[in-house]
């Protein structure tokens, strides 16, 4: 007849006391189950919806902060100075540590540009009106002698996405697929390697294969002609020509729709079939070479010019190694916020790292409120339960002093007596909570849905947002990597059910309540004096 058996006998033979306690635990259990169920359903809905969204973090110039800063300036000179010399740019150094994070699956740290076709290369034609005007762009001006001088300019034919990361989101998400060859490596990025990937359509058009060399002009060669803006800069056609080894040929799923409204006015470089992928460092190096050549030429040409004679003004790598914006794809959508919280602190002024969660946060507000409310109920009930059970147990002790005295007189340890009381409460709690799991499951779903409906209605989250509506337009310049979600997505994922985790939680909480509730009665038992109890009885 050890303490466990004694507890069992007490529970089964003092039925009225046990039933009252059972009812108490049953009511507590129902409240806790409803609270935990709603709270977990809210969290699960948020997690499931967040998982549906892409794990995308953007890192870009914070134009709002810039506007605010400029508006705060009163001196026009200061404003000019800021725009000329202090305007922020994201450099490759700013993102090196960020991209090295283990959570980064891939990143588009892009420098975008346009290339011009060489004699050896024909772009993929759309055969539309824009193409017909491609070579007819003419610019005229009157020179100092009053003569009209007209020059023809070439339009760019190729769009370039140059990345500082040895992969791209499009390849990870299979919207681009390499059909031959490979993507460039980090080593090739570091070495400014003259390599490129071209679309299959472009390769087919020109009979190109992996290992071949493809050539582009980075600048319109017409601009080198006399009278044009690069004339007399010392820059030659060779300087603006890039001969790149084709290391990969890829396909894409971004084919232009001939029935689209703007089809006729798409320039060749807006056709994804004319998109070249290459290391950003290669373009930067080429750009630096041209700018330095130009600077050196003018320095030689104008020996008295203060600007060109100051070596500090000679273009450096820093000037060309910048990124338009960075889109980072993480390996887990749930890591987006921690990632931004961690890295968003150390970025330079006037740049911003964005978890793209604004809409998600707005839509999930009712769920957050619901979760908060449910957790509040749970803790309120738990605290009340502890107080009630402590009082009940402490009062019960008074009626069981005699029994405790008997047990102490036969040498039972006080710890075993406390253990007996704990087991008695725990047994009743387990039975009470087990019954409440059944009833709680039935009511939790209905209460949960009713409360969510009420929350959505009162929060006004289902009303249209005040943001200006922009129609969807997928541009080659600016790919939107985020995922749109709606309130229906969130509500669709919201389902109150009693999972094994909640069942485990309720038992842990229940035993926790019992354990805390027994503390004060335990102290009372520790102070019991068997002589006093028994002599009083006798």
């Amino acid at each position, binding site marked *: 007849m*050890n303490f466990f058996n004694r507890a069992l006998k007490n529970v089964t033979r003092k039925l009225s006391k046990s039933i009252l306690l059972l009812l108490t635990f049953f009511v507590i259990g129902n409240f806790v189950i409803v609270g935990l169920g709603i709270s977990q359903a809210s969290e699960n809905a948020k997690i499931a919806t967040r998982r549906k969204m892409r794990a995308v973090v953007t890192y870009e110039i914070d134009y709002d902060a810039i506007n605010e800063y400029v508006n705060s300036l009163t001196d026009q000179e200061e404003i000019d100075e800021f725009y000329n010399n202090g305007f922020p740019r994201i450099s490759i150094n700013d993102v090196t540590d960020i991209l090295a994070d283990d959570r980064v699956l891939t990143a588009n740290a892009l420098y975008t540009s346009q290339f011009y076709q060489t004699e050896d290369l024909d772009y993929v034609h759309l055969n539309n009106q824009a193409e017909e005007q491609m070579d007819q762009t003419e610019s005229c001006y009157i020179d100092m002698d009053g003569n009209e001088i007209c020059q023809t300019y070439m339009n760019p034919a190729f769009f370039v996405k140059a990345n500082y990361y040895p992969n791209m989101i499009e390849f990870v998400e299979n919207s681009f697929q390499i059909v031959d060859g490979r993507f460039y490596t980090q080593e090739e990025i570091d070495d400014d390697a003259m390599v490129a990937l071209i679309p299959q359509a472009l390769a087919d058009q020109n009979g190109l294969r992996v290992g071949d060399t493809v050539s582009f002009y980075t600048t319109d060669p017409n601009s080198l002609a006399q009278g044009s803006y690069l004339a007399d800069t010392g820059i030659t056609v060779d300087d603006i020509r890039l001969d790149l080894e084709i290391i990969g040929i890829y396909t894409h799923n971004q084919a232009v729709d001939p029935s689209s409204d703007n089809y006729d006015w798409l320039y060749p470089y807006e056709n994804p079939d004319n998109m070249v992928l290459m290391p950003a460092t290669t373009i930067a190096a080429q750009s630096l070479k041209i700018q330095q050549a130009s600077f050196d030429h003018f320095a030689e040409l104008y020996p008295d010019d203060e600007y060109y004679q100051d070596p500090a003004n000679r273009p450096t790598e820093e000037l060309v190694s910048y990124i338009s914006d960075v889109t980072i794809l993480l390996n887990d959508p749930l890591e987006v916020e921690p990632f931004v919280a961690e890295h968003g602190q150390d970025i330079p002024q006037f740049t911003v790292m964005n978890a793209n969660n604004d809409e998600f946060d707005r839509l999930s507000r009712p769920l957050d409120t619901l979760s908060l409310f449910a957790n509040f109920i749970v803790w309120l009930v738990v605290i009340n339960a502890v107080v009630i059970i402590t009082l009940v147990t402490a009062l019960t002790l008074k009626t069981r002093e005699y029994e405790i005295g008997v*047990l102490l007189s*036969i040498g039972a340890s006080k710890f075993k007596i406390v253990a007996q009381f704990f087991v008695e409460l725990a047994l009743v709690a387990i039975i009470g909570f087990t019954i409440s799991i059944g009833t709680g499951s039935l009511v939790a779903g209905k209460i949960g849905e009713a409360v969510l409906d009420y929350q959505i209605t009162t929060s006004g989250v289902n009303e249209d947002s005040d943001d200006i509506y922009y129609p969807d337009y997928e541009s080659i310049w600016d790919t939107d990597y985020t995922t749109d979600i709606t309130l229906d997505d969130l509500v669709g994922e919201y389902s109150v059910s009693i999972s094994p985790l909640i069942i485990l939680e309720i038992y842990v909480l229940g035993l926790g309540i019992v354990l805390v509730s027994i503390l004060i009665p335990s102290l009372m038992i520790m102070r019991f004096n068997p002589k006093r109890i028994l002599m009083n009885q006798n």
Partner: protein
Amino acid sequence: MAEILRLENINYSYIDGGFERQILKDLSYTFEDHRFYTILGPSGSGKTTLLSIIAGLDTPKSGKIYYADEDIEKMGLGKYRRNKISIVFQQYNLINYLTGLENVLVAMSETDNELPKDHKQVAYALLEKFGIVKTKADRMVSQLSGGEQQRVAIARSLASNVDLIFADEPTGNLDTATEKEIVGVFKELAHEYGKTVIVVTHSDSVSALSDQRLLLSEGKLQDIK
């Protein structure tokens, strides 16, 4: 006969109405095994206090108690109560939500003394020995008469296989016939089971049947010839 319990210079006092009341004064006595002792004394002489001290329910202000030459305080009073002694009270002190059998089993489960493996069988046998048959042993103690409850209490005191049994007015609530039976049981315990039984009583008829009568007077124990 060997010494089983030795009291050395026991003093005990308490504050009553602002005055210190000395109950036991330099009390020394040696109890021997296999004997049935009764302690007599007028009301308020400190009989129950003495019993609670030698039973390890309370501690003296000064002095030592040795069980088989071992200081019971050093042994630990809980361990002493669990393994060396048992107590029979006037009110029987049984746990009311347990049966007679289960009350006996409680004592068996608490002691560290070596007991036969089948506790239940031993408990039934003990109860039967003291007149509690199986059907009664399985009843809740509240359904038993006073005499039967006291027999259960005595069976419980024997169940933990201790050598020293204390009793505090064990027949106080019993009729004369039952009192005789119970005292007979105590005698039997001392003489046939080799236990030492120390009974505090105010009943001359009980003490008359003991091997050694003691008088607690003015804080000291003396043999009554």
